[in-house]
């Protein structure tokens, strides 16, 4: 073989090797985190841990039931607020690619996505917590809804944009009114994409801590009143991990593992929904 061809083949192999090496490197941080949290957290997790409240300092054991339920509630109400607005916004953006309002919305959504979560927390503190003069789970939900909104809007928009225009025309040519074309044809056809965007957004906000610091605030007791302070997993991790007590560190590790499993589970569900409800054209 001629030397210059050998040299080129060598270069090509070298490049391939680099690509493989670096992409493997991408998975390393995740596996390290998983390994470390599993090692620290797995021993703490049992049924007792999930259904009991934290014990006072000095007593061993205790659980994170309040944080688990709190997180579920706060995220649920956040999703309840963000999903309708986000999906509708996404529909509008995919339908109106060039209008001035669409461009403004797109810009606003992009900036919102880049807004630091602590800023969102502070703003909600001044908007809701101060006027009501109490920390509340609901204000936390509002903060998380704001965090969630841009993800839902953009994923809905991107999904619906990819649907062929012929689909909409087919509906309109049948004499369907616009809202039925959107709600009964376009949205169902893009369902898997829209729903996976929503699940990813839920996974994303489940671990947000900063917006909850001065909104939901945290609560050592069990509470389901959304107008009162409520505990949540990230807050519990933050508060207990920074405390000086070993028992509380244990709780924080266990909670961290639960949170991680939650996010992992949601991601797996996303993968499954995308595959199951994929529409073939």
């Amino acid at each position, binding site marked *: 073989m001629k030397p210059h061809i050998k040299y080129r083949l060598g270069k090509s192999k070298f490049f391939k090797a680099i690509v493989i090496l670096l992409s493997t490197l991408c998975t390393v941080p995740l596996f390290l985190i998983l390994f470390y949290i599993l090692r620290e957290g797995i021993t703490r997790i049992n049924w007792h841990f999930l259904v009991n409240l934290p014990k006072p300092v000095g007593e061993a054991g205790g659980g994170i039931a309040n944080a688990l339920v709190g997180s579920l509630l706060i995220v649920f109400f956040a999703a309840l607020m963000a999903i309708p607005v986000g999906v509708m916004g996404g529909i509008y953006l995919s339908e109106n690619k060039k209008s001035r309002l669409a461009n403004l919305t797109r810009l606003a959504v992009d900036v919102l996505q880049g807004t630091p979560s602590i800023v969102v927390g502070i703003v909600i503190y001044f908007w809701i917590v101060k006027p009501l003069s109490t920390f509340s789970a609901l204000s936390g939900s509002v903060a998380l809804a704001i965090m969630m909104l841009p993800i839902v809007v953009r994923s809905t928009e991107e999904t619906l944009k990819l649907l062929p225009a012929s*689909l909409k*025309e*087919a509906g*309109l*040519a*049948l*004499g369907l009114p616009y809202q039925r074309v959107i709600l009964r044809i376009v949205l169902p056809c893009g369902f898997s994409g829209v729903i996976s965007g929503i699940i990813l957004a839920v996974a994303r906000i489940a671990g947000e801590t900063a917006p909850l610091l001065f909104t939901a605030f945290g609560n050592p007791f069990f509470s389901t009143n959304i107008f009162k302070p409520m505990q949540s997993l990230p807050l519990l991790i933050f508060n207990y991990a920074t405390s000086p007590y070993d028992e509380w560190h244990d709780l924080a590790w266990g909670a961290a593992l639960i949170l991680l499993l939650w996010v992992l589970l949601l991601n797996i569900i996303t993968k499954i929904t995308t595959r199951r409800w994929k529409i*073939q*054209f």
Partner: protein
Amino acid sequence: MENTILKSVDFDAYFGENHVVKKVNIEIPKNNVVAVMGPSGCGKTTFLRCINRMHELIEGASTKGKMLLNNEDVYEMHPIFVRHKIGMVFQRPNPFPNLSIYDNVIAGYKLNGMKMNKADKDVIVEQSLQKAALWNEVKDSLHKKGTFLSGGQQQRLCIARAIAMEPEVLLLDEPTSALDPISTSSIEVLLQELKKNYTLIVVTHNMQQAARVSDKTAFFYLGELIEYDDTKNMFTNPQDKRTQNYITGRFS
């Protein structure tokens, strides 16, 4: 003509400043197949889409003139009502991918929220599929997704979906250009059957097809209706030089 169902009077269509259909006057007789042919970009598809007011959905599009369906101007009716009376089949088969074959056929009723009992629906589905010559092929798989069908079957499914609404006029926009020769010929045979109940307007850039399927042919060139006559006359004795050139393949 006494049995005219559709008639356009000095009809113009625009995309923004672009004048794509110019002063078209045409009368479509009932229960006929009318072929609209012409080279690419001559406004034939645009004209077709003006008939059921699909043209105006494109940003910046506008029209002028009258389009009379049974002497009523469609531009004075509600577009949804117009599209109930004038069905459309597109260039590429576009069944709803989220619906079964059965639901695709009654989509016009179902998605419009019209309540019907199961027996009525069954009748409409069977009749429409039979008229579209698809019933025998799909009667055992009515509840499978429509997108599992072949291209030609999908196109017939789209025809069934359009005629399920019992339109008076059916517009077909190059209905066979995405299909293989066998599917094409089955659709052409189907058109002959359909004209017993409906009036068909078929856009095609394929002259042989126009000659095979139509009773009357309209030749469009650069947005103008150059010639409109019985298909036999048109292909044997064209009156206009440009029609003659097109038919003899001197330009395309």
